[in-house]
């Protein structure tokens, strides 16, 4: 049944609400407090758009090039994944400074819960101790993490690093020369090392 009345009611579907609904969402997010388990935001950087995610414990994930990480966060942490850029202001500001060459160390909390396994966790902790401008080999890190023969395991710990850039797996290179692999692509690894003043 279509007549003037039902046609007029149907036209209600065309009502533009996107600005109002976006504002209402933003306000609700501000009020949501601990109802948001995983806050996400994006950041435009010289190495492409990054996705950042934080739990109340700290930064938990950085994804490269619009890599879609929401599903993984929902599955492994909590389905309450919500875009809440303000909660990542500190992280975004420090990353901006880093990419501008005005910051060498990050001062915010990390949540390494997406890195599974004791050894991988230790390898990432060891990577965090490599100073900017320097590199270490997979073997060096294996020794640091307590098992000198586990260079391959260090490789997989770096490959599954949930917080690249901030946990500087880009500073880990093969002992045979070259830069080795990188989750975001080896060009990005080279760019980050260059930015930090490393000259091979």
């Amino acid at each position: 049944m279509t007549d003037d009345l039902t046609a007029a009611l149907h036209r209600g579907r065309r009502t533009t609400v996107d600005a109002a609904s976006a504002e209402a969402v933003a306000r609700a997010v501000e009020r949501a407090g601990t109802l948001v388990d995983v806050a996400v935001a994006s950041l435009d950087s010289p190495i492409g758009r990054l996705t950042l995610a934080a739990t109340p414990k700290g930064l938990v994930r950085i994804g490269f090039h619009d890599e879609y990480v929401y599903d993984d966060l929902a599955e492994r942490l909590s389905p309450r994944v919500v875009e809440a850029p303000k909660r990542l202001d500190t992280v975004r500001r420090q990353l901006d400074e880093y990419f501008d060459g005005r910051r060498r160390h990050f001062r915010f909390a990390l949540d390494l819960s997406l890195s599974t396994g004791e050894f991988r966790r230790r390898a990432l902790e060891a990577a965090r101790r490599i100073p900017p401008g320097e590199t270490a080999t997979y073997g060096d890190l294996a020794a640091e993490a307590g098992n000198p023969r586990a260079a391959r395991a260090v490789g997989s710990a770096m490959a599954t690093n949930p917080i690249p850039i901030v946990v500087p797996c880009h500073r880990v290179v093969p002992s045979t020369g070259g830069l080795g692999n990188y989750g975001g692509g080896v060009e990005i690894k080279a760019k980050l090392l260059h930015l930090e003043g490393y000259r091979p």
Partner: protein
Amino acid sequence: MKSGPVKSIALPPFQDLLDAHRDEVYRFLVFTAGPGEAADCFQETMLSALRAYPTLSDASNLRGWLFTIAHHKAVDGHRARARRPVPAAALPEPVVAPVEIEDPKLWAAVRRLPEKQRAAVVLRFVADLPYARIAAITGGTEAAARQNVRAGLIRLREEWTP
């Protein structure tokens, strides 16, 4: 019909629900709760949804679930306003981006409909939902939902002319 407990269900990221349904839920609230109340009702809807989300045992109709929450918030808001002795003009100005409504007289008439008719009409024509889905949101049977839409239309024809 499948039976037995579902072991664990994969809930999509809440942000996906917002992206997919934010606008249509907001629109539903504009037409049921009113343009001035939609923003508050929407916030309450979203906070209630976030609170309950991890405990959901069925992810097959998240859209309907959101509309159900929104419907309750709109009804609560209406009842609260009916009890409130303050004239509408004395209420604080909403600060949200204003929503421009075509045919405001029609939608004012819709808002004067009884609760269930109002929700059913908006869900039918604005959200494009079938009667079975409408019934699941407002409560009652599919036949009752159909009857609510029919009764709503009859009443609107008395009050509204194009």
